[in-house]
């Protein structure tokens, strides 16, 4: 049996376009089952026999159609879980999400992501859980510094592309502030202007050395370091526990460990 692999761009739009095109491919070529179609976010290292590879051109129109259908038929909660899965860095995410959606639409189950005995749902669950954990960590450990013009700046290095989910959190709690969150890993900026909507920006470069911090910034950083030092109880010092709760990879961007 012939197999098809659709290689799409590694973004939410890219994957959703891939899903649209997979349905179209199935219809056009009379393919019997979705099982013989797969999505990938990058060219495989070794190509398999009897497999057709096709590259997908990302289209926001197609992605929008898939999103609408999903929200209408599977509900907002499922849409959120699936978006989280797509934000993860796992290579099998596109295929997992695609087959979960196929299954969900076929059986018309708005709780499709609960069916953990299905292999594709399991994989989606694994991806979504990883992104959700990362999102939690970022809400915890992100640190803003104040620049001279009063703007807040934070740098993160997120394993999964959680910035789009992080922005609404901070926009809600700091509505009056101008702030920028820069994700080093995906080289994406999240921008929020005072009392305005937030948005993402890619393709810009930032020279960290050129940032000028406000006069008070050093004082507050020092105050917080003092606070963290004094709050620990000497007779309970336990670096291993601290390490479990706050892994080293986050500390590079955290005020109290600099």
């Amino acid at each position, binding site marked *: 049996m012939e197999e098809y692999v659709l290689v799409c761009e590694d973004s939410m739009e890219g994957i959703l376009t891939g899903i649209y095109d997979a349905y179209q491919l199935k219809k056009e070529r009379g393919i019997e089952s979705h099982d013989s179609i797969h999505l990938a976010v990058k060219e495989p290292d070794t190509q398999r026999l009897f497999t057709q590879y096709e590259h997908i051109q990302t289209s926001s129109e197609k992605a929008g159609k898939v999103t609408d259908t999903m929200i209408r038929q599977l509900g907002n909660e499922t849409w959120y879980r699936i978006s989280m899965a797509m934000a993860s860095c796992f290579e099998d995410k596109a295929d997992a999400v695609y087959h979960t959606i196929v299954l969900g639409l076929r059986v018309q189950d708005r709780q499709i992501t*609960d069916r953990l005995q299905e292999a594709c749902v399991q994989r989606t669950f694994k991806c979504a859980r990883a992104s959700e954990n990362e999102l939690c960590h970022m809400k915890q*450990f992100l640190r803003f*510094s104040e620049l001279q013009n009063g703007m807040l700046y934070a740098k993160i290095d997120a394993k999964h592309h959680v910035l789009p989910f992080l922005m609404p959190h901070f926009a809600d709690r700091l*509505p009056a502030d101008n702030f920028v969150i820069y994700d080093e890993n995906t080289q994406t900026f999240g921008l929020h202007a005072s009392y305005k909507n937030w948005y993402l920006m890619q393709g810009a470069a930032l020279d960290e050395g050129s940032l000028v911090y406000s006069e008070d910034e050093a004082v507050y950083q020092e*105050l917080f370091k003092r*606070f963290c030092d004094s*709050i620990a109880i000497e007779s309970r010092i336990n*670096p291993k526990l601290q390490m479990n709760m706050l892994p080293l990879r986050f500390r590079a961007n955290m005020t109290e460990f600099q």
Partner: protein
Amino acid sequence: MSLMNLNDQKSIHSNDERGVATANADVHIALHTTSAQTIMGKLAVLTDAAKYDVACTSSGIDRKGNGRDMGNCVAAGICHSFSADGRCISLLKILMSNECIYDCKYCINRRSNDVPRATFTPDEICELTMNFYRRNYIEGLFLSSGIINNPSYTMELIYQTLYKLRTVYRFHGYVHVKGIPGTDPVLIQQVGYLADRMSVNLELPTAESLEKLAPNKHRKTILTPMRQIQNGIAQGKQELALYRNAPSFVPAGQSTQMIIGATPESDYQIMSVAEGLYDKFGMKRVFYSAYVGVNEDKALPSVQTASPLLREHRLYQADWLLRFYHFRVEELLNEKHQNFNVLLDPKCDWALQHLEQFPVEINRAEYQMLLRVPGIGVKSAQRICKARKSGALNFDHLRKIGVVLKRALYFITCNGKMMYPTKLEENYITRNLLAEHEKLPFDKDGMTYRQLSLFDDAQENAALFGA
């Protein structure tokens, strides 16, 4: 130190001088702020004095931002950092003052101790809170205090601070405040409308211990404000149901804490007290604080005595069982078994004493029974219940769902089969479970990591901690 920097107002600097902050376009307040150096010193003293308070959670309430002021709240709470002792830093945990007229034997801030003393002004606290929050250092403020002059006077100062924080600085994030026993009830009421959570410390599990170690405190004066807060919360909920915009009273609920190991109570006594607090006082949380010796006193264990960390850990595990796993204290402990098993966690221990209730069939058992299986937590049990609606589960599914099979396998069947042929026999299972080495946040004898690493080499540590 800068004053607040809200909305489009410019920040104002005032080093040892009077500055004027315009928090709100039409409100002008004169502030007197001290120099950065003084604040540093005060923060060190008043953090140090507050560190033995355990509750540092920011949970219990979901509150969206209002689109104008700084701050929101997340029901699950957010820990922003972890200090060197591995405890969570969620709130700016400080005392307003460590001056105190009381002389509680176990307390570092007692009147008879010669320690550096300091007192924050309301504005200093507000500025620290706003600036820390804005940088995502903290989730809000935890404010407690030593007793200045008398309880009502102190509570009044706390009230002024909160009032300023909420109405002048317009802080919309989380605030946890201590209720001071013996305070005028009117003040408790007023503070309750500004705070998200309030807590009155039970201090010690029994009235006798309290009398012995805290001669200025009385069980009755501690329970009175607790009851008042409980009633206030209940009444507030009722009002909120009637009028949508009724001010909320302590919306994130009430908590309390007690010191473990300074007095001779058994685990059974302690857990019974905790259960009573949950049942009769509607507590959201009871915290247990392993006694840390800071004062030499003949009524106390010696300062060298190690903190009973393992015991504290077991109490928290049992506390979890009460709150989320539908257990009752009598099921875990009784007059004959007054203390928890040192080697096994309370849930495993219970399961081994009740083997007649096992094995449990994963695809049919009730949620409450699934919760009682070692290796299945609340999340796993919920996932199992949802997933099995659309088809039977097997062991491989369970592993993916997050069940710890190496612990659960003795107690469950999937579709009538056990994972491996095992004996449902206490000694056999105990031996196997012990071989798995329970993950503890410290070593079994309660010694901490640092104490051990004093004598050691890397290999010995690796052997002890499996690192």
